[in-house]
């Protein structure tokens, strides 16, 4: 078993385990920590897939930004005592059945799909390539994304400002 295979299965186990932790955990902060596990494992999987740039972006934006925002949101919104928000049993039951069925179906399809094996090619310099693509082919979505971020910044600031005193 080569190093890459071993690494994949370790990381896959970590990602899947953390995702499962998210499902099981009732404490919201623990859920966030499980999410950190998944995000980190997925980032490392990106390294395995030779998407280095994506991996570090995942770490910067997701783990270093979004997740902190989420934890911060948790801290701000869960100061009331004793609010344990457990899923309702009926909902959880139905959810489990549906999701398990979905997973089984997906796996069945995936395993049967006739992927023609393509030898993975080593990207030459993915950062430069991504830069070229972003400012070339994908210029419009790129600019749209910037506009979106601006809108989000203004919107979030507007939403989160303290209510005006009457």
């Amino acid at each position, binding site marked *: *078993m080569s190093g*890459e*295979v071993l690494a994949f*299965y370790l990381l*896959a186990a970590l*990602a*899947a385990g953390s*995702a499962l932790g*998210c*499902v099981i955990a009732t404490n919201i902060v623990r*859920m966030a920590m499980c*999410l950190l596990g*998944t*995000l980190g494992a*997925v980032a490392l*999987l990106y390294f395995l*897939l*030779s*998407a280095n740039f*994506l991996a570090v*972006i*995942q770490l910067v934006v*997701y783990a270093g*930004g*979004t997740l902190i*925002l*989420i934890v*911060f*949101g*948790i801290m*701000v*919104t*869960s100061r009331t005592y004793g*609010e344990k*928000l457990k*899923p*309702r049993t009926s909902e959880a039951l139905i*959810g489990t059945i549906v*999701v398990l069925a979905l*997973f089984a179906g*997906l*796996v069945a399809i*995936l395993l049967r799909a006739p*992927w023609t*094996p*393509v030898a*993975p*090619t080593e990207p030459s310099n993915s950062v430069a*390539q*991504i830069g070229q*693509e*972003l400012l070339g082919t994908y210029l419009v979505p790129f600019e749209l*994304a910037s506009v*979106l*971020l601006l809108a*989000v910044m203004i*919107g*979030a*600031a507007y*939403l989160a400002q303290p209510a005006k005193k009457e």
Partner: protein
Amino acid sequence: MLTVGLTQYLVLAAFLFCCGLFVMTTKRNAVGILIGVELVLNAACLNLVAFSRYRVGTIDGQIATLFIIVLAAAEAAVAIAIFVNYYRTLATIDVDKGDELRG
């Protein structure tokens, strides 16, 4: 014999997706639902990157993933802002309580 190929990545992504779906549908804490969304998005990203590596040979998948990450960050910022407002109004973060508009 354990090998790594596209299928393995896709199965993992499917698993993450299902977990995210479950979290989204059953959790009552609004932030928990957001965490579910992030899981689902991650599953999608993993799919895209794996495809881009094993099938297409170009980096379009990576670009798409980049956009997804950006969108996820934006979405989380707005969502947290909404949740803070929600919490201020209702003094709880339970999404089931937010049914004031129900007729």
